[in-house]
């Protein structure tokens, strides 16, 4: 079956088509006249959900095709991050009744998909056969970056809402944002999850590193990932001690996203 599927790789059109679904969702939600209600908002939300199912199918197809987790090339990693980001937001909505702005999530997901489409799904993915630790390491890292991405959006939404309330701006884009306290509470949970996932990824990566050729590990990537993990860990500890709350916590979370983006970029680079 893998041999048959290998003859039909995911094309750029396929990725751009999926991106257009998310883009439409973002536009519909952005044009919605009132936050959290109306037909356009509902249509945007359902397109986001439908797009996520489509993306899941595409990733499953790619996994079946390459007979491995679809995280072996930059495009696949981007696809996985897009899937994780929209998945985390849908999970928060369903489980915690915390709806991040659909337009923001759908927009970022579409951006990831377009980038993956431009990079192109690699025809000869890395051989991860017999390297289960690497698969787990990359999988945990991808999930951690998804959660950090969701937290960055969450923090941006917090700071925008905080600014809106402080400056008495109640309409427009600000009406589309969730309430402050839930944003803060969910932010703390997301940051905690990111620390665990990134820590797990680092531990597994280190274990694999100890067992294999040391030169295989790209030092800049490792340093950036370590900085991200330490920053996130520090934020979580300060939060627990109640020294970093509300807007300060949101700002710190956004700062922690910078080394995360660098680490992600270096990871994509090393996956080539």
């Amino acid at each position, binding site marked *: 079956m893998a041999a048959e599927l290998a003859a039909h790789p995911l094309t750029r059109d396929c990725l751009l088509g999926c991106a257009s679904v998310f883009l439409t969702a973002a536009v519909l939600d952005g044009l919605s*006249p*009132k936050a959290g209600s109306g037909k356009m908002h509902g249509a945007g939300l359902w397109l986001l959900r439908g797009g996520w199912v489509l993306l899941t199918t595409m990733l499953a197809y790619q996994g079946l095709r390459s007979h491995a987790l679809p995280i072996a090339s930059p495009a696949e990693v981007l696809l996985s991050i897009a899937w994780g980001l929209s998945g985390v937001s849908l999970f928060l909505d369903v489980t915690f009744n915390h709806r991040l702005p659909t337009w923001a999530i759908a927009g970022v997901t579409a951006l990831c998909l377009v980038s993956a489409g431009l990079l192109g799904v690699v025809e000869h993915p890395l051989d991860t056969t017999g390297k289960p630790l690497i698969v787990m390491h990359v999988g945990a890292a991808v999930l951690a970056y998804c959660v950090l991405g969701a937290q960055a959006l969450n923090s941006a939404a917090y700071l925008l*809402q*905080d600014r809106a*309330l*402080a400056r*008495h701006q*109640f*309409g427009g884009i600000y*009406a589309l944002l*969730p*309430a*402050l*306290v*839930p944003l803060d509470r969910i932010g703390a949970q997301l940051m905690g999850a990111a620390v665990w996932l990134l820590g797990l990824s680092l531990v597994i990566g280190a274990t694999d590193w100890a067992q294999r050729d040391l030169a295989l590990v790209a030092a800049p990537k490792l340093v950036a990932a370590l900085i991200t993990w330490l920053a996130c860990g520090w934020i979580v500890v300060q939060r627990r001690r*109640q020294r970093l*709350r*509300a*807007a*300060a916590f949101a700002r710190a979370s956004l700062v922690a996203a910078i080394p995360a983006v660098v680490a992600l970029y270096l990871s994509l680079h090393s996956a080539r």
Partner: protein
Amino acid sequence: MSERPRNLVALSATHRTAGLDERAAFTVPAGGAEVFYAAAREAGLAEAVLLATCNRLEAYAVGDEAAALHVRSALLKATGAPAAVLDQHLKPVPGLEAVEHLFSVVSGLESQMVGEVEIAGQVKDAYADALARGMTGPVLNRVFQRAFQAGAWARTNTGISQGQVSLGNVAVELAMRVFGSLADARVLVLGTGDVGRQVVQALVSRGASQVSVASRTFENARALAEEFSGSSLTLADALRQAHAHDVIVGCATVERALLDAVTLREIAGRRDGRPLLLVDLGVPRNFASGVQGLDGTYLCDLDDLARVSNANLKARLAEVDRARVALAEKAARAWGAANHQASPEA
């Protein structure tokens, strides 16, 4: 020979031209209505109604230009406001225009939060007060009663009040933008008047379960709190424990702010970064306005609530236009009928 049709004049100063602090300068203090009607009687006005709310100071009287001057003078005495301040905002509205204006006011079209429902009750109270003092007659009785009917008609037959626009609901909407759910939020309401009652009612109906009510008259606070299963506090205790609350709504009638800037900063400092929402529904202000820029502390006043409410106004604007046209027709009929009834031949 028929008598010349009677004239009606209204003097109106509202939020349209006066900011919150200017409006505070011409509020009618306790006993002010008494002063107004005494002055009106002294000036020989047979029919006059005083309407004083947070956002408007208006008086309706039967008479001509001279009557307008007497009304102005009575308003100055009642409010104690400097003439320069009041004259800057007081607009005379004559005859049929005054009737149309009253119809629009009762319907909520002239309100800061277009379509709000409280104003109808406030006008009814003002009319009842004038009636009890014997200051209404055939013209104002007819005009006001028609205005109440027109207001009810406009609310029932047009969409001007879509979304139940009221101070209480908008204050709760604002609180929900900070806290999401009000189930865990500790709310303190200062003041037990009509607005205080509406706020408590709106809070409880939207899931707030920890509502405390405080008033200068503790009995009033206890009665309101018991009605909505909340707790009651004396005003002094409430101000001492203010830092323990997430939302503080001020709707008390005050001469100076209950919480000054220093106290507000102190309260914000004791909250360890937890958000604090201060909703000031009072004119004059219940809270000093100098807390902008404090992390996690948000202060909103009546003007802000109007902005929240009117953010969704576009959808109602067509209904507002429809209501205005219909109300103008009704006002013309009412004015014709009032004049007809007032003439001796009728």
